């Protein structure tokens, strides 16, 4: 038997030709810091050092490591933290942390090489970008990674202690952080799903006998509904649990299955044709998925078209006649166009994964989820179990972005298999499953007409949106155009176009980016025709007080003041500057509770929230520390466990606004209790009175519940739903009753100014710099809020320039099922990002803070598009603005 030396120990290597180095590292040696993400050598999460060189362990055969020295992330900082690890911690060069070990390993190797050859010189952004080009981070922590690698190479972290702004950063840079995919119980089986290879059909025979006959197979179960119908490629049919993935895959292949094909229809254009096969008959409509954060409202539904959802319209008939009149008169100010956006996949680096474990009548579920508490409730309801018999745990979650907000197939299948096999079962999707069946932001076709009034106001806005929702409903794109830019009339209509594609899902600001892509370009076009500065026009038409302050800031930026007109642009490379606005709703979850205790002199805060990379642990730690005059790392925070007090889901940007107020209330009560129980008051003039009181305090506990907001608001601050009158009031009540979310007063807002460079020969766009102004109230965790803001921009750049799910239009099969074909931004695509926080506007919220996660990504794609227009005179009508589309437009031809 051959061996390798790994992190200083000798370890045997298997003879199996198909065993990869990562299998040995993660499964045999339990070194779970090394992560499997793409399985194709694209993302770098599995990077380890082999004889000092960083390699992709997911592709390297284990046999090839024979006689070699291997170092994993666990071996990088084994004795003391490596300078690169310290730098990542201090510069907050991470969010969910799932890609972090790979970055650390590669950056440590680079650091060693750099110091040996260049001393303490500082590497440039280009050098760092090239060396880390084989790593992908979906949260978009690249901005911090640039700073961290440069600082470590230049010797800034050679010695000394450090403090990270993110409380769990140490576990993430050392590989110690355990994610759901890393959980391994005694006797745990691996679950694999048999999925439909046809877009529409009826499954006949399903014979598990040959699968169950294989050694090591624990269970095989059917996942079919009573009608045995499958409606998209990838729909689960059956699942198997076996001792390892290889055996489970063999078992899946052994299942005997027959099926009958039914007529299918794929995509936005085909599904709208009059005689298109119908995906959901009336009786089956409840089986459709949901692409919104809340529940949907009723709408007409005929064949594959559900809509219009037009409740937010204002005088729509008048709008139609005004627009028609302007068209007849050839009014040059009437802006019309049809914009198209691509299908964006969430691409969480940790796949959807669940480990289910029954012990007697108790069920423990480790899940990669955006909502530990709500998931527990959903599981308890589905399996008719008492709440105290179900526990959902998620210590760390490798990204969510909206795709892990509900009870997913990975969870129900893991539970069903665990029950059937009478053993713990893990289900973890592979990358193809992740990029095909876990939801997506639907593609859309957005038809817009915008009519300024003779006086220079906004007279009419008409937006009609068709969303390519697959086997799902509830798209709200046009609807969102009601809550910004008041007009004399608005005609807003949303349609879901249902087809035999996997269901879409809520994705970071659902409906926001496609709405903004169309509306913000139409505003830009109107400004050009009216010969008004585009920011000036927004100031004129947009009444929101938060955004008006951001417009003032944007107008003062040098890059805006010095921008050139389109006519001044010549030559191969052209630079342009664009602006766009975005908003999102301020949401919070009623009933959210936080407990704060002092135990043995130490402060502990806890709630059943989860940290998907957004920093909820740190927000709580900072809030508690600030009130007691301590450092955040002195506060212990317990989250990620449904046994704790009810906490909010990580969706709708609601976590900060849901947990900071109850944390403050709990602190207030705890302080009173501590003072009451104190035997001795702190010395007069003590500079750390609470430190003294805490040290002497008996163990005490207090909790707070999220209070209603104050009704005392700053001038102009109101619920955005007020603009919609009684319907808005009803909508707000529905959200509260059905989805347990309150739409608060005040509008989280973002204004972005973006500079691009266009290579007109190669149709290539490089985003040079981004200025993002954000108004979300007081910033609870500044370094982390900055990371969120920068990451939102980077994800927005992906949406604008690179990302598109590609399908085969005949079979409905996803072609972009790997990370080389589904292209998310890399570190070298990252612009220089300037983040400006305007902290006013939310004083009516206890603590003054609301969420940032979604609003900061809404304006990026239209700002990039407006910048491209400024550079080239090409109005980008379709996302992503890839080289194929841009070069065709530059040559004056229609793109394919």
């Amino acid at each position, binding site marked *: 038997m051959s061996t390798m030396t790994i992190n200083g120990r000798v370890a045997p290597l298997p003879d199996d030709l198909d065993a990869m180095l990562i299998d040995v590292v993660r499964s045999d040696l339990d070194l779970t810091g090394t992560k499997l993400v793409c399985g194709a050598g694209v993302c770098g999460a599995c990077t380890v050092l082999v004889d000092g060189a960083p390699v992709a362990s997911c592709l390297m055969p284990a046999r090839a490591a024979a006689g070699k020295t291997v170092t994993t992330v666990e071996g990088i900082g084994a004795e003391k933290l490596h300078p690169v690890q310290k730098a990542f911690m201090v510069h907050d060069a991470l969010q969910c942390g799932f890609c972090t070990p790979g970055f650390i390993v590669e950056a440590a190797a680079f650091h060693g090489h750099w110091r040996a050859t260049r001393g303490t010189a500082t590497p440039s952004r280009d050098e760092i970008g090239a060396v880390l080009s*084989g790593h992908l981070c979906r949260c978009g922590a690249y901005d911090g990674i640039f700073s961290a690698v440069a600082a470590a190479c230049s010797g800034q972290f050679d010695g000394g202690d450090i403090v990270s702004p993110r409380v769990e950063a140490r576990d993430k840079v050392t590989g110690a952080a355990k994610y759901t995919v890393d959980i391994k119980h005694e006797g745990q089986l691996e679950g694999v799903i048999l999925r439909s290879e046809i877009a529409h059909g009826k499954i006949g025979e399903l014979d598990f006998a040959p699968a169950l006959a294989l050694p090591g197979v624990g269970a095989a179960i059917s996942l079919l509904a009573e009608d045995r119908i499958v409606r998209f490629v990838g729909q689960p049919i059956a699942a198997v649990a076996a001792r390892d993935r290889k055996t489970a895959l063999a078992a899946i292949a052994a299942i005997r299955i027959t099926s009958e094909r039914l007529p299918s229809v794929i995509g936005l254009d085909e599904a709208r044709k009059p005689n298109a096969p119908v995906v959901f008959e009336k009786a089956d409509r409840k089986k459709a998925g949901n692409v919104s954060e809340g529940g949907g409202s009723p709408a007409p539904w005929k064949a594959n078209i559900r809509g219009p959802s037009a409740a937010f319209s204002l005088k729509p008939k008048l709008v139609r006649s005004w627009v028609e009149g302007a068209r007849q008169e050839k009014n040059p100010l009437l802006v019309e166009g049809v914009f198209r956006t691509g299908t964006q996949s969430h691409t969480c680096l940790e796949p959807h994964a669940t480990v289910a474990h029954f012990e007697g009548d108790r069920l423990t579920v480790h899940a990669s989820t955006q909502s530990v508490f709500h998931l527990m409730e959903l599981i308890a309801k589905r399996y008719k179990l008492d709440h105290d018999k179900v526990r959902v745990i998620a210590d760390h979650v490798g990204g969510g972005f909206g795709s892990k907000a509900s009870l997913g197939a990975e969870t129900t299948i893991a539970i069903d298999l665990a029950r059937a096999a009478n053993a713990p079962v893990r289900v973890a999707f592979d990358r193809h499953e992740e990029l095909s069946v876990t939801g997506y932001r639907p593609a859309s076709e957005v038809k817009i007409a915008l009519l300024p009034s003779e006086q220079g106001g906004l007279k009419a806005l008409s937006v009609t949106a068709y969303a390519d929702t697959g086997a799902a409903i509830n798209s709200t794109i046009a609807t969102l155009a009601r809550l910004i830019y008041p007009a004399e009339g608005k005609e807003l209509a949303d349609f879901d176009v249902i087809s035999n594609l996997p269901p879409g899902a809520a994705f970071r600001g659902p409906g926001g980016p496609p709405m903004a892509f169309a509306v913000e370009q139409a505003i830009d076009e109107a400004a050009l025709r009216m010969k008004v500065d585009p920011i000036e026009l927004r100031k004129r038409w947009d009444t929101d007080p938060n955004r008006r302050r951001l417009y003032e800031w944007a107008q003062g930026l040098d890059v805006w003041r010095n921008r050139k007109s389109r006519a001044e642009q010549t030559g191969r490379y052209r630079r342009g500057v664009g602006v766009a606005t975005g908003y999102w709703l301020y949401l919070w979850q009623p009933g959210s509770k936080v407990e704060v205790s002092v135990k043995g002199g130490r402060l502990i805060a806890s709630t059943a929230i989860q940290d998907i990379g957004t920093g909820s642990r740190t927000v709580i730690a900072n809030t508690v520390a600030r009130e007691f005059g301590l450092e955040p790392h002195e506060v212990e925070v317990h989250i990620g466990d449904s046994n704790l007090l009810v906490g909010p889901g990580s969706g709708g940007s609601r976590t900060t606004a849901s947990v900071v107020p109850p944390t403050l209330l709990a602190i207030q009560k705890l302080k009173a209790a501590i003072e009451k129980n104190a035997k001795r008051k702190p010395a007069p003039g003590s500079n750390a009175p609470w430190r003294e009181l805490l040290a002497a305090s008996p163990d005490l506990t207090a909790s707070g519940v999220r209070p209603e907001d104050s009704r005392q608001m700053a001038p102009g601050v109101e619920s955005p739903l007020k603009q919609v009158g009684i319907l808005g009031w009803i909508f707000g009540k529905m959200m509260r009753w059905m989805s347990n979310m309150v739409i608060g007063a005040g509008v989280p807002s973002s204004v972005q100014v973006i500079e691009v460079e266009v290579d007109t020969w*190669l149709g*290539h766009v490089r985003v040079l710099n981004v200025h993002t102004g954000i108004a979300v109230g007081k910033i609870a965790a500044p370094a982390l809020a900055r990371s969120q803001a920068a990451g939102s921009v980077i994800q927005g750049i992906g949406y604008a320039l690179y990302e598109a799910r590609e399908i085969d*239009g005949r079979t409905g099969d996803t072609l972009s099922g790997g990370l080389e074909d589904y292209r998310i931004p890399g570190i070298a695509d990252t612009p220089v990002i300037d983040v400006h926080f305007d902290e006013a506007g939310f004083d009516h919220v206890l603590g003054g803070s609301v969420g940032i996660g979604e609003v900061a990504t809404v304006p990026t794609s239209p700002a990039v598009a407006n910048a491209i227009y400024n550079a080239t005179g090409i109005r980008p009508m379709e996302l992503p603005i890839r080289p*194929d589309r841009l070069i065709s437009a530059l040559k004056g031809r229609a793109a394919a």
Partner: protein
Amino acid sequence: MTPAMTTEFRAAGTDLSERRRSGVSKGPLMDIVPASDISGMNWGADGTLRIGAYTTIAAIAADRGIAAAYPGIAASAQGLATPQIRHLATLGGNIAQRSRCWYFRNPHIACLKKGGTDCPARDGNHLYHVAFDLGPCVAPHPSTMAAALLAYDATIITYTRSGLSIPDVLGDGSNGTVDNLLQPGEMIRGIELPKPLEGERAFYKRAISRAYAEWPLVEICARAVVKDGVFQFIRLTAGGIAPVPLRLKAAEGAMQGKAANALNIEVAAKLAMSGAKPLPMTGYKLDLLEGVVRDVLEKLGT
């Protein structure tokens, strides 16, 4: 035995491992033993170079001798894949790698290269496929190194044959069922590069949507000897646009003996498209081809 069932050689496995994980490739496997005759580089006394097939892409990219004598080879090696792949992947494996077509790589879809009867990309989604439709399969050949070797008139040595040109090994695109014409059991030992020309320079450029780490939409390796502003010698090869690496002979002809001015370069860049047959979705690749050729000719001319 279906084509997929013949024994596959495995060097570093960077392509093969992914195909085996997805289930596209399942047949018997044989690990190559990195013997000394297929590892490393040997410079001949006559200025030629032999590179063993087992040499890694990273080693080629970092070699100063190659960068000086064959800068197009070095730049191509530096420009492909990612650092973690280049540290593992070998030259032989790069030449003999299988298609990156998303239909070929999908285990549930039949295609010509997997024993199927037709090419699903041709009437399907072929956004990243060929613009020179030279055969029944419309996937571009994935080997960046092969396009660079073609530019240098390199020959390939196997255990049974030698002196093979790139077209001898990769064909002309008319056989859509294979990615190369190596016989069953035939393994690449190395490549031989003729002595470089006096005063030659080279550039490599690929058009992609992001900054790095993407299969090229179009890639060009260009060598030239430019004296007194005149192209004495020019060689242009292209990848990403045809089932095999292509020499752009019409564009070469247009620059040979001509001054390196904007007008001549523009004419040559347009001629790069000679013989193109784009598919409905790949017309843009010709615009990019023109742009990349212009780019490298300008760089060579200055």
